[in-house]
């Protein structure tokens, strides 16, 4: 494995200074579940790893008036273990429960999953549909980027060399909202999305009409994708098979997948439609407060 | 009754298409020599010197012979020449 140095600062300023000084040869070490393998494979050859797990700002997990604050280093399993804190954000929980096995979930963070910026990553579609904002810090200050604008290509994102993702913020959830994330994989667990779909819906008092909806797709484009037309097609529409089918069709049109060993283009486009329908149905059920029966891998 | 030698299908050109050859012999070596006497060229395809060719096994009846050319052949035994197989 490439030789590198290691620092584990306890305050953010020190951490940010490393990145300001290292001209891109430093990398953030959060859970390390992607990074360590990537270094082993020679994909990255950093000279310094900055372990950010000791920074208090990156370990915050709390729900306040203004919404949910999720530190970038919080491991996936901490998220679903704090089910009351994240109760309104079901899609986020769905994602966290399927990233790798338990061993990976105990280390990997949503922040790391986002920063790794894999097109098939399981958390970005959920972040997008939940309207998450990414809080980015550097020695110069902080800025916020909407989740759908964070990734810019496979393994690429908006972070500059001196910047670190420190937190993901979510607005509070309106009443009668529900969300869901689901992916298609050949195995039921321990797999990587061939297609991933997240959806969040808000219904009116009757529960029969969409007030608002957001749909996002994974593994069907170089980056996770906010399916804007599909989402907007549902606003103000009644909840029925036609409106859902129409949204699924628009989601399919938004998909720009490639053929690869995990699935063909045709397969991915087809499954995008199937999953969009299923995910919307589940999100609607949750918005209505209905009981759900799910099976592992389905 | 005498031993019945089953001719491997790819060698039937040597035996004028004959599938089974009846010969006498007390062991596999003698049986092969007996076929060779009728159909010259046979032994060279089955044997390598005084051994079975590499990769080849002989069964007598339903049993795989573990004694090679010295394996005893009963008067009514079937003799087959098959590839040696193994397993995982």
């Amino acid at each position, binding site marked *: 494995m490439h030789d*590198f140095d290691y620092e584990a600062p306890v305050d953010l300023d020190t951490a940010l200074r490393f990145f300001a000084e290292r001209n891109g040869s430093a990398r953030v070490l959060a859970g390390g579940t992607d990074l360590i393998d990537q270094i082993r494979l020679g994909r990255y050859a950093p000279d310094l790893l900055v372990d950010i797990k000791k920074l208090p700002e990156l370990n915050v997990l709390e729900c306040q008036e203004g919404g949910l604050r999720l530190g970038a280093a919080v491991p996936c399993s901490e998220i679903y273990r704090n089910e009351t804190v994240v109760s309104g954000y079901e899609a986020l929980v769905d994602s966290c429960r399927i990233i790798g096995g338990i061993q990976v979930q105990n280390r990997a963070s949503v922040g790391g999953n986002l920063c790794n910026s894999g097109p098939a990553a399981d958390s970005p579609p959920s972040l997008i549909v939940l309207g998450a904002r990414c809080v980015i810090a550097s020695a110069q200050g902080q800025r916020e980027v909407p989740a759908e604008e964070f990734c810019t290509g496979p393994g690429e994102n908006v972070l500059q060399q001196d910047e670190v993702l420190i937190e993901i913020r979510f607005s509070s959830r309106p009443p009668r909202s529900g969300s869901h994330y689901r992916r298609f994989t050949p195995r039921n667990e321990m797999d990587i999305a061939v297609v991933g779909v997240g959806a969040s819906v808000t219904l009116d008092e009757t529960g029969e009409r969409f007030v608002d909806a957001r749909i996002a797709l994974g593994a069907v484009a170089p980056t996770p994708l906010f399916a804007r037309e599909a989402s907007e097609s549902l606003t103000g529409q009644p909840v029925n098979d036609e409106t859902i089918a129409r949204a699924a069709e628009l989601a399919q049109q938004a998909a720009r997948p490639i053929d690869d060993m995990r699935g063909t283009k045709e397969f991915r486009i087809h499954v995008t439609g199937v999953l969009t329908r299923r995910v919307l149905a589940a999100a609607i059920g949750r918005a209505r407060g209905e009981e759900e029966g799910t099976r592992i891998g389905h | 009754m005498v031993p019945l030698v089953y001719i491997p299908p790819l060698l039937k050109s040597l035996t004028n298409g004959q599938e089974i050859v009846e010969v006498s012999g007390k062991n596999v070596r003698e049986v092969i020599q007996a076929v060779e006497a009728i159909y010259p060229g046979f032994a060279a395809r089955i044997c390598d010197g005084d051994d079975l060719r590499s990769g080849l096994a002989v069964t007598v009846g339903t049993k795989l012979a573990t004694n090679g050319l010295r394996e005893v052949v009963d008067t009514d035994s079937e003799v087959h020449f098959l590839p040696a197989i193994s397993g995982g």
Partner: protein
Amino acid sequence: MAKKRIVTTTINGKETQFLCQPRQTLLEILRDDLALTGSKEGCSNGNCGACTVLCNGKAVNSCLILAVEAEGAEIETIEGVAPVDGLDSLQDAFLQQAALQCGICTPGFIMSAKALLQEQPDPSEEDIRFNLAGNLCRCTGYDKIVRAVQDAAAARQQV
């Protein structure tokens, strides 16, 4: 070469110090430097679970943790599971159920199952399968492993 670090950690209840390069994984140090070879390397990228140890009570892949990250942590490996005078109920259940064939994956399964039973003393079959999905076994087809964890859970309830 990057400067070596002295790491102070607790392994199987005992304070332990070791010297490591930053690029060495916890698995490498456990196996090569501390002679704790019960944790196995099957894939080195977090897909097989043979290297599973508990870090602060949670199951993790020791192949995906740098040894330096163990500073201040409580690590538990398969070598620390059995009490001095016998076996843990999980180990016992694995033997009773014949839940191992070659045995290479067994330490990882026992560590994952141990973490599960600490958190959920009475797991359903689905809970067990979900929590063991990060451990691959190529010999058994999992049937007997799942039953062993069920038995161990039942045995622990009785104590």
